């Protein structure tokens, strides 16, 4: 591992030590409060909130202004091209995870997309594959672990990377390690290119979601808790592969079971109130 990588690991570890305080569990004579505490699945909440505070500072000072300049100054067709190219670079990792999940149809779609968009799509700047019946989808190793039956583990707020959990954090590391782009950048000494790509992905993602994030911050009563709930529900949905980008005969019923974090019977609760 590079010296840089070790330094980063050190910072992570130090952050963990300093902020390692656990959330105070509710008094055990209040079983409902204990159940709530377990359902929220955030035993490191104080540390997570501190990291969230740091991330928000980073966002306010650097990422949001950068994304603002990017969204405001760069014409939409160029931004679309950049977005397509970044998505195309992600294809090998998506293919890797499609295969590990045994999703051969989706793996074929990913491979075809990569072939078409890299050539006819001018190195990925354009996305003719979608029009040819190979629509875009995402996969990552966190989802692969989930399909293998791994539990999400405690919710984590990662420095700079944002909302996650122990399973998805492992996923991020594995996806990074298997990405051929990173091998290439590492073996040819072009580490700066890998960093630039990471920064571009962050700016692209931030710019595309600017309105939603601003709205969430504006309207939420507890920004941290709203984001936590949103992240967990979105991940559960992604792991079920949503619905409509799956088989064309309509969405399956799997995703109607309600998000995993809160399996208690909503239907009967609402009925009770009548």
């Amino acid at each position, binding site marked *: 591992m590079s010296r840089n990588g070790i330094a980063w690991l050190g910072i992570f570890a130090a952050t963990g030590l300093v902020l390692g305080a656990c959330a105070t569990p*509710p008094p055990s004579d209040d079983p*409902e*409060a204990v159940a*709530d505490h377990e359902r*929220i699945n955030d035993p490191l909440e104080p540390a997570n909130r501190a990291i969230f505070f740091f991330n928000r500072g980073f966002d306010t000072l650097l990422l949001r202004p950068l994304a603002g300049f990017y969204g405001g100054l760069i014409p939409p067709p160029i931004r679309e091209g950049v977005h397509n190219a970044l998505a195309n670079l992600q294809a090998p990792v998506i293919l890797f995870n499609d295969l590990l999940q045994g999703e051969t149809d989706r793996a074929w779609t990913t491979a075809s997309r990569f072939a078409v968009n890299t050539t006819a799509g001018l190195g990925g700047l354009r996305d003719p594959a979608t029009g040819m019946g190979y629509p875009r989808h995402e996969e990552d190793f966190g989802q692969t672990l989930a399909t293998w039956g791994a539990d999400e583990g405690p919710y984590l707020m990662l420095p700079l990377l944002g909302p996650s959990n122990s399973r998805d954090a492992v996923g991020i590391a594995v996806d990074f390690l298997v990405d051929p782009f990173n091998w290439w950048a590492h073996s040819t000494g072009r580490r700066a290119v890998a960093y630039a790509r990471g920064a571009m992905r962050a700016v692209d993602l931030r710019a595309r979601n600017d*309105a939603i994030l601003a*709205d969430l911050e*504006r*309207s*939420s*009563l*507890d920004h*941290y*808790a*709203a984001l*936590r*709930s*949103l992240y967990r*529900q*979105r991940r*559960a*949905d*992604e792991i*079920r592969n*949503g*619905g*409509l980008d799956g088989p064309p005969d*309509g*969405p399956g*019923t799997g*995703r*109607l079971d*309600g*998000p995993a*974090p*809160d399996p208690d019977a*909503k*239907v009967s*609760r*609402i*009925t009770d*109130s*009548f």
Partner: protein
Amino acid sequence: MIIRRRFLIVFAAFALLVVAPCPAPANSGDEGRFIESMAEKAIDLLTDLDRPRDERMTIFRGILNDHFAVEAIGRWVLGRYWNRATPEEKAEYLALFEDLIVVTYVDRFSEYAGEHLEIVGSETIGEADLMVHSLLKRPGDGQQVRVDWRVRAAGQGASYRIYDVIVEGVSMAQTQRSEFGSVISREGRSVAGLLDVLRRKTSDLGKTTR
């Protein structure tokens, strides 16, 4: 006269067919049309920014109360704390909960101009609920957002009420419940603390001019 009598019988039978109240909304398309007509109405009326914001808020409140089971959602969102609240707290909470939805969503609709909600289908979930699947389509770039509506027949088989809206797998009720729960536990596990925060938030958002 025979012709006229036959005509009358046919007419009566026809009228019976058309007017006869359905015992239950058995028609699988009804719930889809319910959502579709509501969305059309909302997009029509609320994306017109020539209307002052106050007027749009009044319209939105009307649509909300006509189509959503606001009180039942509010109770579910408060969860186990509902039973701990005093009658005064319950009343104030329900009023603030409705206000919060109005001030939050009235501005979101202003961004939906020209968009169209396409009903994809529906299915039965649980014992009493239907899930209506739809796509919110933007005309320009062909982007679409997956929106699912949990609905239930509103007595008498007359119409429906919406119990939850699920956008790209994210349930609005679920998110609010988790958020409200977090506020309550941070405010010393009291509903009064949540009411404080709600009062401040609704008044802040109510003042925003857009």
